[in-house]
């Protein structure tokens, strides 16, 4: 049946700058100074080494469940690096690299994953939201922050992270729709790592790309090679500049891959092949960026030892943290303790004084939540 096509027609673009061997498409080079390139690489390496260390800590029972980022370092750092400290960063639960870039001390993250909420407390001047566990629910918060910034006429951009699976939730949709109507300075960064636990992208949505979902909200959407830190940087810089210039929100899809487990409770061999993983290992964002830096003679010697030392020192500080005082659970429920809560607090304090149950707990290696992990990976 013939009909009239509506204008404008829609396209979604793909951006890639460094190929898997680290060769640069110089026409697209975002032109970062050498020092910035080195800083980015160091952060990627630190994130990678810490990630491996954190998996081991969890295996030893020294922390609880944790979501590793191996493979996603370029997506996180290429994007977060374009923010100013006065901008806001809104993580999901898998942004260790972005959080460290934003100044979260490593020991604090460890504390968080050891079940101390103190570890989730942003510093007083830090414009980051804490980790959000329920998938996609942080996205409307990012839009609200951006609205408030615009309302106050502050020069602020908000960047929000989420995964491919997150795009199926209603909150993703509502957040992007509000952002479009309000035309607020927010950049949505989707790390499409191909999997939502065991569910592959093709079972997640019938849409060919995540980027094209922006069309539903009248927003620009772009797909980038998420294992190419320069491509992520270029696309993010453009989006942040647009937002800062009052030109509204953007959706960036970083095509990447989770090389490790979903969380430390997961066994990915149940749902994906070793070949698939190997194929993506060849596209490792670190190898590629290192190859490029090497060609540019920007790769420093001894960097691994340096970051390992930094991590070890942080772990030592984490291990030295005082046990959790149970009474703190009452401190941040309301601005003031209501009478019933005061009574409950007193009863617990009494119990603790009498040395009975609920005593201060050290990070003891009690059995963690048992899910699917078979220990094979």
């Amino acid at each position, binding site marked *: 049946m013939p009909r009239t096509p509506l204008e404008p027609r829609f396209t979604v673009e793909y951006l890639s700058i460094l190929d898997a061997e680290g060769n640069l498409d110089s026409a697209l080079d975002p032109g970062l100074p050498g020092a910035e390139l080195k800083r980015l690489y160091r952060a990627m390496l630190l994130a990678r080494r810490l990630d491996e260390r954190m998996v081991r800590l969890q295996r030893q029972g020294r922390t609880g469940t944790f979501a590793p980022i191996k493979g996603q370092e370029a997506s996180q750092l290429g994007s977060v690096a374009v923010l100013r400290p006065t901008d806001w960063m809104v993580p999901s639960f898998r942004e260790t690299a972005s959080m460290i870039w934003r100044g979260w001390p490593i020991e604090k993250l460890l504390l968080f994953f050891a079940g101390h*909420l*103190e570890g*989730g*407390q*942003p*510093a*007083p001047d830090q414009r980051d*939201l*804490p980790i959000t566990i*329920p998938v996609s*629910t942080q*996205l*409307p*918060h*990012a*839009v*609200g*922050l*951006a*609205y*408030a*910034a615009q*309302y*106050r006429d502050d020069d602020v951009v908000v960047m929000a992270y989420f995964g491919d699976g997150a795009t199926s939730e*209603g*909150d993703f949709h*509502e*957040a992007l*729709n*509000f952002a479009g*109507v309000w035309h607020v300075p927010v950049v949505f960064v989707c790390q499409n790592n191909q999997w939502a636990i065991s569910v592959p992208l093709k079972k997640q949505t019938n849409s060919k790309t995540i980027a094209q979902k922006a069309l539903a909200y009248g927003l620009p959407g772009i797909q980038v090679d998420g294992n190419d830190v320069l491509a992520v940087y270029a696309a993010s810089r453009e989006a942040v500049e647009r937002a800062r210039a009052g030109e509204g929100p953007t959706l960036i899809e970083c095509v990447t891959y989770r090389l490790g487990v979903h969380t430390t409770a997961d066994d990915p061999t149940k749902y994906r092949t070793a070949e698939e993983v190997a194929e993506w290992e060849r596209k490792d964002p670190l190898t590629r960026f290192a190859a490029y830096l090497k060609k540019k003679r920007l790769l420093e010697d001894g960097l691994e030892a340096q970051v390992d030392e930094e991590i070890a020192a942080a772990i030592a500080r984490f291990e030295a943290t005082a046990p959790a005082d149970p009474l*703190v659970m009452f*401190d*941040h*429920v*309301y*601005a003031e303790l*209501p*009478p*019933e*809560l005061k009574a409950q607090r007193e009863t617990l304090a009494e119990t603790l004084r009498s040395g009975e149950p609920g005593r201060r707990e050290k990070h003891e290696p009690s059995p963690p939540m048992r899910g699917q992990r078979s220990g094979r990976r």
Partner: protein
Amino acid sequence: MAKLNLVKALNLALMQEMQRDPDVLVIGEDVGVDGGVFRVTEDLHRTYGSKRVIDSPLAESAIIGTSVGMALYGLKPVCEIQFSGFAFQCFHQIENHAARYRNRSQGRFHVPMVMRMPYGGGVRALEHHSESEEQFYAHIPGLKMVIPSGPRNGRALLAAAIRDPDPVVFFEHKALYHAHKEDVPDEPETMDIGRAQVVSEGDDLTLVAWGGMLRVAREAAETLEQEDGVSCDVIDVLTIAPLDRETIVRSVSKTGRAVIVHEAPRSFGPGAEVAASIMDGAFLSLEAPIARVTTHDVPFPGFAREKANVPDVARVVGAARETLAF
């Protein structure tokens, strides 16, 4: 001092709080140009413009979710959910976030927001437009749950809720909007959240109610006084959570008997907590089981049957007589 109905009184609170504090803004479906489907936000849009009085898209979760973001930034959003029956759409944003950000961030952030919702029956409405869901919010740590019973306390409590540093769910009974007028002072007025009020005093029985049921409780007290010579403490709970157990327990310690009246379904409803709290605090004074007069454990029926579902004076009087005869 002007004679205002509840709609106008709430509107006054919003007008004045917005005047007082530029961080206060209003957001919801049809709250702007239209002035809200019940006209509670009438004229705010004209006075404060569309940046402060936001006609949002039709999505409750994003209304609450973006408001949480605004509150984290330092603003004080007053959200309207058009009917409390549609707040389950944003229940996760309320429970996961509004109620928890202070705790999650260990005090670095807090969420000074108000979630206004018309609730309650008796207005010949369609499904989901007549329910009383206070129990769901009262059970969530980190939230406050407030229900005024008339224009004056409505205005004062709404102003207090807006100034409160913590998130407040604020229910407004639809049948009260136009039910009666009261003198409301011109000057801003607030009331303490977390305090119940003894609105009339007696020795024989305590009647506990809130919102749309307060009138029913008061009329029942009058009937009991006139027909049975029984005198009642009538308590207007006002803040459902945190509950003012002290005031309620003090009363029942005196009277020894209590009838709780609410519009939420009975089982696992708010009356159970009131009853259990009375037992905790006044066990030895109790001379009869505490009665609960409530809607039935059924989905709120079509309005042709609502009178048989919502507690009325006769049912409260009946329960009181049984309690007194125990």
